[in-house]
């Protein structure tokens, strides 16, 4: 009897645990990293929605951006733990596809958040920002703000070969009306107006270094495209050190709360805001629906982009800093 007590307890615990699992649909969320505020917010959004709908969210991430193996491991572990829906922001759009196929074969619904897989129909559905459109918006804004002046452009990109980096960059040039590439391209277009390109890795310090070197190359730069707001803040530091912060227009993409604050402070002229909280909440809702009714979602849902600018430009639709602050990261 004494020997059996621990066993009994274990059995009871297992029963209790399994009954919890049966009642609550389990949804797995796999982001690219744990540390990017964008993904931190995405996780918060998923958890809030899950609490509302009575679901359980398990989250995991790759170790660094590009860590495909880490994402696959997380996916396997989640399926083993009973997840019937996996929400994933693929780090490597192609390499993740076989693992997704395997999950789907076990009856798991897989939804891509933020960035698509290649081919896009490898997942059941995609909830994401249209990054090309986000770029087009800031390109149009920059053109209107320059008001006919000849653009001398520097681009502070992500790093070579990343689809989101290419889409924003090429969208920006397209929006400005310059020679560009389409949304499918992974190359960065370089028309004559772009006098300098540097990789920022989306990082403040590296963005600053990139801008310093670009100013060294061409001191007449008057428009700076940045992959995200930390890179933009770094670029502003470099411009300020050179005494040029008033003469150069910085545009960006992301719309995080800190980034919107920088728009208000005049560091960034305009930014395209995206909504990670909304992506995650929609994903969780779809997962709960699937667990209850067996009905899957499909196709691409644009989670929206809004141009936020302190100063509006004629002919360009934008919202002010207050609206941007209310909406940042998808808060209501």
């Amino acid at each position: 009897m004494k020997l059996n007590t621990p066993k009994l307890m274990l059995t009871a615990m297992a029963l209790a645990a399994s009954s919890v699992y049966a009642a609550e649909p389990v949804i797995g969320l796999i982001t690219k990293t744990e540390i990017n505020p964008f993904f931190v917010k995405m996780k918060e959004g998923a958890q809030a929605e899950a609490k509302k709908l009575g679901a359980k969210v398990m989250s995991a991430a790759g170790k660094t951006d590009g860590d495909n193996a880490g994402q696959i491991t997380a996916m396997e572990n989640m399926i083993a733990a009973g997840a019937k829906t996996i929400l994933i922001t693929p780090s490597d759009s192609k390499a993740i596809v076989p693992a997704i196929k395997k999950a789907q074969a076990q009856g798991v619904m897989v939804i891509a958040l933020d960035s698509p897989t290649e081919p896009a129909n490898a997942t059941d559905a995609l909830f994401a920002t249209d990054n090309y459109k986000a770029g087009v918006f800031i390109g149009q804004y920059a053109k209107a703000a320059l008001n006919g002046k000849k653009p001398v452009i520097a681009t502070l990109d992500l790093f070579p070969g990343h689809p989101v980096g290419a889409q924003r960059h090429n969208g920006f040039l397209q929006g400005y009306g310059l020679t560009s590439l389409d949304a499918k391209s992974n190359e960065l277009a370089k028309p004559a107006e772009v006098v300098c390109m540097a990789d920022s890795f989306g990082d403040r310090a590296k963005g600053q270094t990139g801008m310093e070197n670009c100013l060294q190359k061409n001191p007449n730069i008057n428009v700076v495209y940045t992959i995200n707001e930390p890179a933009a803040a770094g670029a502003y530091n470099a411009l300020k050190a050179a005494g040029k912060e008033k003469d150069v227009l910085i545009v960006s993409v992301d719309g995080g709360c800190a980034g919107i604050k920088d728009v208000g402070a005049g560091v960034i002229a305009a930014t395209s805001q995206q909504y990670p909280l909304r992506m995650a909440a929609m994903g969780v809702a779809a997962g709960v629906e699937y667990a209850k009714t067996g009905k899957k979602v499909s196709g691409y849902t644009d989670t929206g982009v809004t141009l936020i600018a302190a100063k509006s430009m004629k002919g360009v639709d934008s919202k002010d800093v207050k609206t941007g602050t209310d909406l940042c990261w998808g808060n209501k």
Partner: protein
Amino acid sequence: MNSFKDKLPPMGTLGPLIALVLACVFFASQSDRFLSTQNFSLILAQVMVVGVIAIGQTLIILTAGIDLSCGMVMALGGIVMTKFAADYGLSTPVAMACGLAVTTAFGYLNGVLVTRIKLPPFIVTLGTLNIAFAITQLYSGSQTVTDIPAGMNWLGSTFTFGGATVSYGVVMMLGLYLFTWFALRETAAGRHVYAVGNSPEATRLTGISTEKVLLWVYVLAGLCYGLAAMLGVARTGAGDPNAGQTENLDAITAVVLGGTSLFGGRGVVLGTLVGALIVGVFRNGLTLMGVSSVYQILVTGILVILAVATDQLSRKGAR
């Protein structure tokens, strides 16, 4: 009895300098904007953070150790000083001292694990790399700290010197290099560092406590990372929890390119500065040329192999 040959700097010291000059000549021929005092002061400002980390790394590598945790410890120091100032309203010097204390404590932890429990430095610092990273992320909530007092940016402010704009941070870096160079060359403690790296057993038998020397080396390295954190905060004007991600390998690269032997006991700290500058010159020069950053990575990789090969061959020759 010093022969003429003894007075010549060894190849391990001259090689990096030649590589740096060759790189400068090449970029000067490719871009007319490269060769200016202003551009050189820019490159100095761009390498100052890694440069100061690399001083600590040089000390450790001279003892035949290695420190993988340096970048993450620096990031933690930067977050501690900015958050202490922004959230608790501590005065700038106090907040900075707290940051220095945290990085120095991490150095002490590394040192204790290496000397008392005799764990290999590679493993110890691999562990503390992850610990420092996790604490940084948890403490900052992965959020950049931006509302810092203006005084924290002081090291990033500049003065004009002979047509070049020089930041106080660069002066601090150069001062630290000269100080470390002098201490390693002219003081007994400095010679002990080399001795421990050359042969710990022989050093111990002469009555020097190798443990004490090693512990001090790790503590001072931790202090260097704290100073680097001050420079990083001053340069970017923010506490960045994602700083330091590549700095451990960048610092090791600078040390190796500068001719310090990974087997310990041989090297000159000024070479490390040259090594850091080589990387900075390539990044700057290739951007001026409009070439993708991937080439910078390629060139750095080739140079690292060359530097280690030179060291290995010269060792064989010396035998």
